[in-house]
């Protein structure tokens, strides 16, 4: 299992955006691509199609900028393939095949840009940047602390999972072997008990270093807006501005 959510390190990651910019992009993506907001015909239709196309294209550019060429290329190829299937193949098919192809290509073209943007965000941000951004957005410590614990804990759960898996293979508990019905139970019980134990030790270590005090926590991680952030900001602002215009019937 790959548990690489927010595990980026600072070295070698290309163009850096402020986490807040990334969040804004995610929200815009939800509104315009996932949610399909905006009107769909006439001049407005063209404008909003343009916005969606730009937004769908962005994850590709961002991944390139973050030096993740492989992921970017894979995304571009899969997306284009699904798009072509969606437009040219589905009208030619009937029945269950049509149902399957349509469902697959439809859902993928709709969710993929957003999921890829999500992948970009979590793979290019460090936990400290993320917590710093949340602090600047005045989100409560009651959410920031559990979130940072969680990001810290993902790789640990992944490690535990791997160990348990190995132990199961040595005992002959595998897919297709006997005891298959109990595979889930056998996996979850040690996973939970080990995680709870590690969690207790982690709590103790964090508390003896003063977590949960009454003073406001500082955050040494420096984040801020740069040229690239303003470009993205402008793009999103334009999109939302258009949306407001269309709500008032101007477009």
């Amino acid at each position, binding site marked *: 299992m790959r548990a690489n959510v927010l595990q980026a390190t600072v070295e070698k990651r290309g163009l850096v955006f402020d986490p807040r910019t990334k969040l804004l992009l995610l929200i815009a993506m939800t509104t315009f691509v996932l949610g399909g907001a905006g009107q769909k015909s006439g001049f407005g239709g063209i404008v909003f199609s343009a916005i969606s196309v730009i937004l769908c294209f962005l994850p590709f550019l961002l991944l390139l900028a973050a030096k993740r060429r492989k992921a970017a290329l894979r995304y571009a190829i899969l997306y284009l393939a699904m798009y072509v299937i969606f437009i040219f193949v589905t009208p030619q098919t009937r029945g269950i095949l049509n149902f399957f192809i349509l469902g697959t290509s439809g859902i993928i073209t709709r969710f993929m840009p957003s999921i890829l943007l999500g992948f970009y965000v979590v793979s290019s941000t*460090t936990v400290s940047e993320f917590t710093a951004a949340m602090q600047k957005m005045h989100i409560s410590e009651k959410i920031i602390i559990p979130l940072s614990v969680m990001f810290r804990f993902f790789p640990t759960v992944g490690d535990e999972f791997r160990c348990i898996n190995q132990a199961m293979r040595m005992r002959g508990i595998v897919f297709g072997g006997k005891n298959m019905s109990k595979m889930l139970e056998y996996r979850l019980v040690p996973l939970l008990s080990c995680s709870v134990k590690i969690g207790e030790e982690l709590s103790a270590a964090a*508390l003896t270093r*003063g977590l949960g005090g009454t003073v406001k926590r500082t*955050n040494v991680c420096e984040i801020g807006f740069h040229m690239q952030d303003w470009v993205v900001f402008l793009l999103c602002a334009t999109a939302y501005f258009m949306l407001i215009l269309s709500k008032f019937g101007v477009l």
Partner: protein
Amino acid sequence: MIEMNNVSFTYANTEACILEDISLQIKEGECVLLCGGSGCGKTTVTRLLNGLIPHYYEGTVSGSVVINGLDVTKAELYETAKYVGSVFQNPRSQFFCVDTTSEIAFGCENMGLESPLIKERVAEAAEKLNAVNLLGRNIFQLSGGEKQKIACASVSAMEPAVFVLDEPTSNLDMPAIGDLRRTLLAWKAEGKTIVIAEHRLYWLKDICDRVVYMAEGKIAFDIPISAFLEFSPIKIRELGLRSLSMEALHSTKPPSYGAEEFTLKDFYFSMEDIPILSIPALTLPQGSLIAVIGENGAGKSTFSRCLCGLEKGFRGKVLFHSALYGRRKMLEKSYLVMQDVNHQLFCESVEEEIRLGMEGENKEKIKGVLADLGLENLCQRHPLSLSGGQKQRVAIASAILADKEFLIFDEPTSGLDFRHMEQTAKLLRSLQGKKTVFMITHDPELIVRCCSHILRFKQGRVAEFYALSKETEGKFFDFFTQS
């Protein structure tokens, strides 16, 4: 500096009093070693000092613990944190952040210090602990020793007056212990007060000023280190403590050679095109106890995973009884007892657990194995509710019943006191002649007690393989003392 006055403590939900009427005065700048067997209460004392008791581990405390004028049994944990810094046993579970720099800054951030000051302190702590090369790294990719160094740096950056360490070397190898030793010396040079609960004693000889020996929740004696060092090895053993020096160790029994042999062939393995293991051929005595030693990253764990058939791309073979075992067959025939045994206990009861990998029903055999390992009375218990040693025995029982030929142990004695280490050694010795046992370990005391052979790895190759005897003892000890 530290005043414990008539402290007694009972954990919530238990009857037994874990500490009884402890009084202890520690002066500023003193370094005190707390020792004694498992369950003697030394960890509880460290928890009282850093305030985890009663604020995190709940229970009833009487008496007072005053540090620098602050009663830590009453003060909030984040207040105590300013005066007392703590380092714990398990390097894997005590870091909060993902990257090293934020981790070192973590404590200071909680104190709400100004950002420039924190940066200064981080740089200073990293400098002092010789950890500058670790800054900006992902902690998950560090070795256990490096993680422990970061834990120390993080505490050090908060600049507390007192450092409390609870069995900090349990999971460390020799070079890492050397690093920790230098860290403690640096703190001592700054005039910090240090309290350390520890099993392994040899590395503390020239650091500690006083030795407090505890038994059954009481202080049995409290003497200067010079008096403690006068104790004979026999007395140390009677107290249930680990040896004070390497010289006290001696291989106790002549090694027995297995009559038959088996051969590992083409043990090559690489990760991301970097070769990690390369053993063209290696012939080993069957039924022997082989200690696998070597520095961090020498390929010991990769070797064990390959031997167990757990690495999917692995192509090596084992020639055993004139049959050639491939990866799948090895998965069937070998069993790795992990450092954290909790990963490999799945069932509701011990009995069900040990029958899990068995072919068919054989009540007699089960009974026999249970009796051999002293598990008869634990049959119906939940495996996870057992003690560490008992869990280890359950894992061994299940391996024997599943007809495994090769048993591999990963650090079977990490964090064990003398008595438990000796029990494990006895248990491992009882397997001699029946199964071939490999054990990856950093514990020379365990090795001299049970191993017949030494297999040393260096950079993925076999550096040497020899039977442990009076003649070879020298180079064996050299390996452990050089670092």
